[in-house]
């Protein structure tokens, strides 16, 4: 086992060890489950997980599998249930029903075994403001029950890796937002986790810090850590993940590799802006027929969006058509669909996170 995961040595129990660790768990329950899944191949397995808060159903039966060693992104707008699921996976809360296995261990029945094997970096940098960077790392290292010496050397290593050693003896109050978030990630790694959970790791970061964090996540993944992250941004999922699941209203509505998901959307989005944007509605009637899906045309005050297939060719045709009709084009661009458009395509509704905007009235009656 240890050869497969050279970085951590002991991320997953061999079948025998697991039998020992799980002796307290009811036997039949485990058997059923393992007939379906070889738990050593998956870092995270959930089956029909449900969670209610009062009358509100936050999770309505979520089943997913994350292969060990991969990067998995859970994508969805605010209120989709991402954080609720993450809290269940990291043993911070219990599901009402369903099964949850993390790092080969049952997160409901033996949460302490799961906690030994995971790292968590939340939406907020959950580090102690008044301690120094090094103190934070060593504290959490000791709480993972590493020896004093081990947590010291490990803290040193990580500070180096994250290039935070220049500030290691300063209290965190003096850190910038990006540095804090980096330290937060560093802290989550000190216990050699085999599965790392990241809740919207780059929310609120500037582009430079964001890219830096992406690089670190990629590096970790190459070293063999399974990374499970939630995000609201399609480009983040696209840049990092081997597999993406899209979540909405407590269920997974689509799942696949980034490529598969984009292909399922059939093509690109053409973004057009006229010199005189008040003419846009008129122009749109001219080029409507080029859209691959008329229900997904959007007209904003500053630009119009056209879903297209055969992007490059359609672009030229649209431009020719507009020029022929005498419209002056300010800018035109071809790009991949963003999260809001993925949502629109999958659910016929805008992602809740999207700003409200005006849209072209349609027969199918979805409102902005």
């Amino acid at each position, binding site marked *: 086992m240890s050869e497969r995961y050279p970085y951590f040595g002991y991320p997953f129990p061999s079948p025998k060890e697991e039998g020992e660790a799980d002796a307290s768990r009811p036997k039949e329950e485990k058997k059923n489950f393992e007939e379906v899944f070889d738990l050593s191949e998956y870092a995270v397995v959930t089956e029909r997980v449900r969670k209610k808060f009062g009358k509100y159903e936050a999770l309505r039966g979520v089943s997913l599998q994350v292969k060990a060693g991969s990067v998995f992104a859970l994508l969805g707008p605010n209120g989709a249930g991402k954080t609720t699921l993450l809290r269940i996976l990291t043993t911070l*809360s219990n599901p009402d029903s369903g099964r949850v296995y993390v790092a080969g261990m049952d997160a409901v029945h033996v949460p302490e075994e799961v906690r030994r094997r995971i790292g*968590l970096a939340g939406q*907020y*940098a959950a*580090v102690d403001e008044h301690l120094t960077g090094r*103190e934070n790392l060593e504290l959490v290292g000791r*709480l993972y*029950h590493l020896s004093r010496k081990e947590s010291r050397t490990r803290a040193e290593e990580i500070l180096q890796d994250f290039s935070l050693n220049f500030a290691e003896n300063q209290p965190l109050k003096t850190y910038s937002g990006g540095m804090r978030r980096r330290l937060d990630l560093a802290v989550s790694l000190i216990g050699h986790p085999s599965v790392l959970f990241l809740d919207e790791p780059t929310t609120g970061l500037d582009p430079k810090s964001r890219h830096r964090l992406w690089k670190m996540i990629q590096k970790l993944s190459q070293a063999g850590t399974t990374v499970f992250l939630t995000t609201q941004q399609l480009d983040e999922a696209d840049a990092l993940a081997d597999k993406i699941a899209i979540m909405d209203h407590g269920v997974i509505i689509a799942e696949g590799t980034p490529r598969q998901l984009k292909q399922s959307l059939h093509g690109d989005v053409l973004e057009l802006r006229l010199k005189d944007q008040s003419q846009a509605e008129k122009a749109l009637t001219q080029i409507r027929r080029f859209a691959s899906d008329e229900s997904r045309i959007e007209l904003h005050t500053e630009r119009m969006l056209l879903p297209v297939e055969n992007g490059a060719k359609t672009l030229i045709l649209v431009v020719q058509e507009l020029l022929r009709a005498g419209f002056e084009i300010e800018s035109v661009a071809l790009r991949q669909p963003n999260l809001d458009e993925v949502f629109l395509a999958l659910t016929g509704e805008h992602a809740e996170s999207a700003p409200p905007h005006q849209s072209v009235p349609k027969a199918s009656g979805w409102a902005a």
Partner: protein
Amino acid sequence: MTYLTDFFWMCSDIFLMTRRNLLHHVRIPQLLVLSLVQPIIFLLLFLFVFGGAVKTPGMSYVNFIVPALFVQTMIFGSIQTGVGVAEDLSRGIMDRFRSLPMTRGAMLAGRAMADLLRNIFVVFLVGIVGYGMGFRFTEGYGNAFGALALTILFGFAFSWIAVSIGLLARNSEAAQAAGVILIFPLFFASSALVPVETMPKYLRWVAEYSPVTTTIDSLRILLSGGYLVPPLVYTIFWLFAIFIIFVPLSVWLYHRLP
């Protein structure tokens, strides 16, 4: 894993969390200074404002008020414990600790221990200033030590009430307000500042049996003489009840945070 190593790690976890919270006092000296100065100001105020007006049976007003201030230190300090817990909770750092393989409740115990150590320090300070104002313990070192032990136990018990309040309030302002509303009346409706004999019937009944009164009376007897058994029996009953209820309640709340 054996019970022995489990026990070792539990002690280690509590020690680490205690140290973390004590470090805050070093890093934010204002916090420490304020919590030191406050009881001294109260001591002087009570002494000079009430001192002349209140007739205290069998002892000088200094000897009457100093044990009350020991208890007051513990009570007011416990409000801060609740505030600290709520602050950790609202900042998300509690989620981090809860996701670690550390002992259940060590985070709360560490907070309670750290604040207790600070409070003990303050109690000594109040004792020293009180000595300057004429406070004397007449019953020997053994009883004085017993009084100190009782003060510490009382403080530890109340800090668990405060931890529960902090976990229920979930934000530091609410925890502060809840602490003040729930704990302040308990202090004033007791024998802390004036003898209970002057209070109206029902209030007097409440005040006579309140844990604050029984503890303060026990301390006064330990320090200035008297028949110890009745107040001490009530006090032990109270402290036992508080531990039995609020330690499990706090740990339960901690693990069931939404």
